[in-house]
């Protein structure tokens, strides 16, 4: 049995500790981040992978067919692996020494900076178990974006980020293809499946603007060679999406004026519930070892 890694000390290393090495004070208190622009840039990707993986994992045991249940779990595991590598790296860049678990389990909602699309629930309505149409569309749209992102990041001036990208790009290529195949199968399947896909596309589309909306963080990354400005990915992504939607006989939705901002910490009402569930054990067992 391997020695487990340190987890869930609420204070950063070097912080106050009680007599027997246990944490003194409010050990379940949230950590406070002070990320620079580089850390923020990496965290956006890390959090997107983490939260997207979480939504995919919700399907485990409930997918429409056993083979696809296994495939979705693989996708979730790939994304989880990517998020762990990115979180660890972001923790290094941020400088306070937080590890992957502290970042995942002890940050407050406002400090998570995933894209909004990742946190939307799988269900069509709040009560629904899962809308497979929405899931495959989200998978395709985000995988297509992620593939472009990883392809650019493979040339990052940051060696660690480039290394993570080198591995992730192969996974993203497969994720994109598997998801695109589903979009086509369901878009051009039965009348019923086409209607469901159209409804899912309408629900999803307004949140895609955020994927290409650049700000000071990614402009700085582009200037320094850390990674691409998000806006530069739009053209290639749109061409890919148009092509696949056409094969799926699904209409391109009209341009939306909607602005979503989870990547700046302003989430939907869904994020609070997601984090409450995800973080509950660490919050309830301060100083716990897992």
């Amino acid at each position, binding site marked *: 049995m391997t020695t487990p890694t340190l987890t869930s000390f609420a204070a950063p290393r070097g912080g106050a500790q009680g007599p027997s090495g246990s944490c003194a004070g409010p050990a379940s208190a949230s950590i406070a981040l002070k990320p620079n622009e580089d850390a923020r840039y990496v965290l956006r990707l890390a959090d997107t992978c983490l939260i997207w993986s979480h939504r995919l994992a919700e399907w485990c045991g409930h997918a429409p067919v*056993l*083979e*696809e249940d296994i*495939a979705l779990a693989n996708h979730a595991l790939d994304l989880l692996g990517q998020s762990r590598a990115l979180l660890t790296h972001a923790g290094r860049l941020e400088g306070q020494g937080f590890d992957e678990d502290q970042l995942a389990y002890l940050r407050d909602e406002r400090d998570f900076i995933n894209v909004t699309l990742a946190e939307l629930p799988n269900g069509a309505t709040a009560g629904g178990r899962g809308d497979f149409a929405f899931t495959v569309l989200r998978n395709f749209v985000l995988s297509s974006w992620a593939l472009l992102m990883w392809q650019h990041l493979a040339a990052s001036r940051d060696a660690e980020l480039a290394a993570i990208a080198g591995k992730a790009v192969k996974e993203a290529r497969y994720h994109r*293809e598997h998801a695109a*195949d589903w979009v086509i199968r369901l878009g051009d399947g039965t009348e019923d499946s086409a209607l469901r896909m159209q409804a899912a596309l309408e629900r999803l589309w307004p949140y895609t603007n955020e994927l290409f909306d650049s700000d000071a963080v990614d402009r700085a990354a582009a200037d320094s060679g850390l990674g691409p400005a998000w806006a530069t990915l739009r053209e290639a992504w749109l061409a890919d999406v148009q092509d696949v939607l056409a094969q799926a006989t699904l209409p391109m939705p009209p341009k939306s004026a909607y602005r979503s901002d989870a990547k700046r910490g302003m989430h939907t009402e869904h994020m609070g519930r997601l984090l409450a569930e995800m973080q509950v054990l660490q919050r309830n067992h301060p100083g716990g070892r897992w």
Partner: protein
Amino acid sequence: MSSEAKSEWPLWEVFVRSKAGLDHKHCGSLHAPDAKAAVQLAREVYTRRQEGTSIWVVRSDQIVASDPGDKDMYFDPMADKVYRHPTFYELPESVNHM
């Protein structure tokens, strides 16, 4: 076609070559709607993300098999099929519920 039959995915046999130089080995079957999905799902189910493997998939009802060795054994009418899967056999509509 009954609604159940409309949505039932065909059965595919999966053969995997785990390393260059080895033969493809039969490792089981799975259900998939089409050939491309069958290869992808075979990778997901039977190789779990290992690199460098080769996968063959064949629809189970396309496999032609020899008879079992013993000539005195009884044979099924569809003697060349790999096994007695219910959907391999087209029955008249009136008895198709069995």
